[in-house]
C-alpha cells in the first residue's frame, strides 16, 4: 500500500487539459481541543516566531547545554510522562532535535516505558516549510513495533509532543521510514500526514 505522490491529468469540460498536482499536509488533533493544558509547560509560551533557542536562554540552560523534556509511556495508564535530558546547544534546531529524538530512542531512565522500538535508528531530521519536522527512522521503527492502537498512539505522540514541546520552530511532525512516507505505522494511525501535538496525552498526575 503506497501513498506516494500522485499526478492526475484531467481534461476539463473539453476546453483544456489540466495537470493537477496537489499536496496536502494533514494536521490532526486527535483529542478535543478543549482539554486543559498540562500544568507545567514553560516552553508553551514561546511562539513559533521565537528566534533561535540559543538566543532565548531558559533558566535551565547552563553553559553550552540546555534542558529538554521528553515523553515516555506510563506503565500504569495511556499517559505520556516527562523526563528531562541535557542536550548540547549546537547551532541548528535540527541538530538539537536530532539529539532529543536520540534521547527518546535511548529510552527512559526511570520506571517509564520506551515508545520507540528498540533497534530503531534515526536516519535524519529536517525542517521543512510550515514548521514541519520530517523525522526519518530506519525500518526497525515499523518492523519491531508491537502494533495495536494504543501502542501506535503512544509512539507517534511521544515523538510529536516531545519535538513540538521543546522546539517552537517545530509545529508539526511527519514520520518517514527509510526515507519514504508510509500509509500507516502498523495499520492504524495514518502516517501520510503531519501531526500537531496532543498534549492531552501528557500526564497531569506525575510530573517532573
Amino acid at each position, binding site marked *: 500500500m503506497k*501513498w506516494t*505522490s*500522485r499526478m492526475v491529468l484531467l481534461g476539463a469540460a473539453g476546453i483544456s487539459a489540466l495537470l493537477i498536482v496537489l499536496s496536502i499536509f494533514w*494536521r490532526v488533533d486527535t483529542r478535543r481541543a478543549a482539554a486543559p493544558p498540562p500544568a507545567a509547560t514553560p516552553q508553551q509560551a514561546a511562539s513559533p516566531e521565537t528566534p533561535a533557542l540559543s538566543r532565548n536562554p531558559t533558566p535551565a540552560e547552563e553553559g553550552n547545554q540546555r534542558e529538554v523534556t521528553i515523553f515516555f509511556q506510563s506503565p*500504569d495508564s495511556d499517559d505520556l510522562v516527562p523526563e528531562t535530558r541535557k542536550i548540547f546547544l549546537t547551532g541548528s534546531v535540527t541538530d538539537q532535535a536530532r539529539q532529543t529524538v536520540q534521547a527518546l530512542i535511548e529510552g527512559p531512565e526511570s520506571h517509564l516505558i520506551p515508545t520507540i522500538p528498540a533497534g530503531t535508528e534515526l536516519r535524519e531530521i529536517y525542517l*521543512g516549510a510550515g514548521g514541519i519536522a520530517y523525522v526519518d527512522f530506519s525500518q526497525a521503527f515499523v518492523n519491531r513495533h508491537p502494533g495495536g*492502537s494504543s*501502542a501506535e498512539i503512544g509512539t507517534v505522540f511521544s515523538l510529536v509532543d516531545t519535538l513540538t514541546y521543546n522546539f517552537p520552530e517545530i509545529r508539526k511532525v511527519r514520520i518517514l521510514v527509510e526515507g519514504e512516507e508510509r500509509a500507516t505505522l502498523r*495499520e*492504524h494511525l495514518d502516517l501520510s500526514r503531519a501531526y500537531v501535538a496532543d498534549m492531552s496525552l501528557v500526564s497531569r498526575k506525575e510530573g517532573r
Partner: protein
Amino acid sequence: MPSSHPRNFRRTEVLLALVVALSCGPLLPLDLAEGEVALRFQNAPLGTRVILEFTARPSYQVRKQSDRVVVTLLGSFKSIPYKSKTFDEPILNRFKLDRSSRQTELQFFTGPGFAAVTSFEMNAPFRLVLEFQKKAGNAPSLGAETAGAPAQEDPAVPSSTPEPLEAPTPGSEATSVPARPPGISVIVVDAGHGGSETGATGPSGLLEKDVTLDMAKKLQAGLTRRLGVRVILTRDGDRQVSLDDRTALANHERADLFLSIHVNASPAAKARGAETYFLSYQATDDEARALAALENNTLGVETPPGNSALGMVLWDLAQSQYLAESSKLAETIQENLNALLRIESRGVKQAPFKVLMGATMPAVLVEIGFITNSEEEVRLKDGAYRERITQAIVDSVASFKDRVEKQLGLQ
C-alpha cells in the same frame, strides 16, 4: 462472499472522488467581497453537495422545511454567481435568494429524490458545506441533520430562468445507483490485519489477526441471525487486504455500517480493557486549502515530499459527514462492552485511523481487549468469551439500528 472484490475498486473510488472534486462548474472569483456568498454545486457520492463560501464566518441557521432547505444568514448577502438557478433534478430542484437589509435567505428547493440534509463547516476560507442526500442511498446523517422548523411558505416564488453558466447536474448519479431500502440492511465487518500483517502478538503467541477473523465470523453469524441484515466480511480467511480496499468494499456495497474489529496492544503490560474508536477529523487549514484548490481547479500548489493522494481529501470528508453517527455507535458499543463484560472501560476515543477514513457510512473500530496483557490474552483465546463480546456488539448494533430506523419513521 465478495471478500475477494476486485482490486480496481480503489481506482474507481479515486476516480469518483476526482469527478466529485472537479465536476465543479466555472471558476468563481477568487477574491470574494464582504457581504458576498459564493455558491458551488457538485455531485457527491450520496447526492448533491452545495458549498457556500464566505469571507468570514457569518451568523447562520440551516432549517429543513417540507419542500426546501433554508440557510438564513444574518445580514445582507449577495450570492454569486447565481441569484437563482433551476436544476429540475430529483434531489435539488431550484435555488433562490431572498435578501433584505437585515437577513438573507438562501432557499434550496428539494425534489422527490431528496432524503436528508447535513452540514459541516470548513475554514480558511470559511465554508458551509451542505450535503443533500438522495433517497435510497446510505443512511442519512441523523446526528447532523438539521432540525425541521415550521414551514414558512413563500407563495411568491418566481420561476427562475436557467443561468448561462454551466453547472454539474445534481443527482445525475441517482439513476445509476440501484435503489436500496433506507435504514440499516448491509453491514461490513472488518477483521483487522491478516496475512503477513499479523497485527499484535500476545505474550504466549496469540495473534491478533486470528482473533479478529474469528470475531468477524461470529459477528457475521450473530448479526445475520438477530437482525436479518446482510453482513459482508472484508476477509474470510487469513490473507492480507489493504486498508483502502476494506473501505472501498464497504462503499461499493453501499453498506450502512462499517465495524472494524481489532485487538489492542501496549508496551505497558498492565494495560487492559476494551475501547471503541471513531475517526478524529478536523478540516485543517491545509485541508481546506487543498479542497479549495480542488474546487477551483487551481494549479501549482506546492508539492513537498510525500504529498497525499488527491482522492483521499474527499474520502476523508466523506467520513466527516458521519462522525456524529459514528460517535453514537461507538458510545453504544462501548456501553454494552462495559456492561456485559464488566471489563475496565477505556471509553470512546478518536484517532486518525486510516481504515476509517474513506468510509461513507458510520464507521467505528473496536479494540476488544489487550492481547499484550497476559490475563486478557487467556480470555481472548476462549471461545465463550469471544461469544460474549460478539453478543455485546450485536446488541449495540441492534439498538443503533432501532434508533436510526425509528428516526427514519420506518418503525
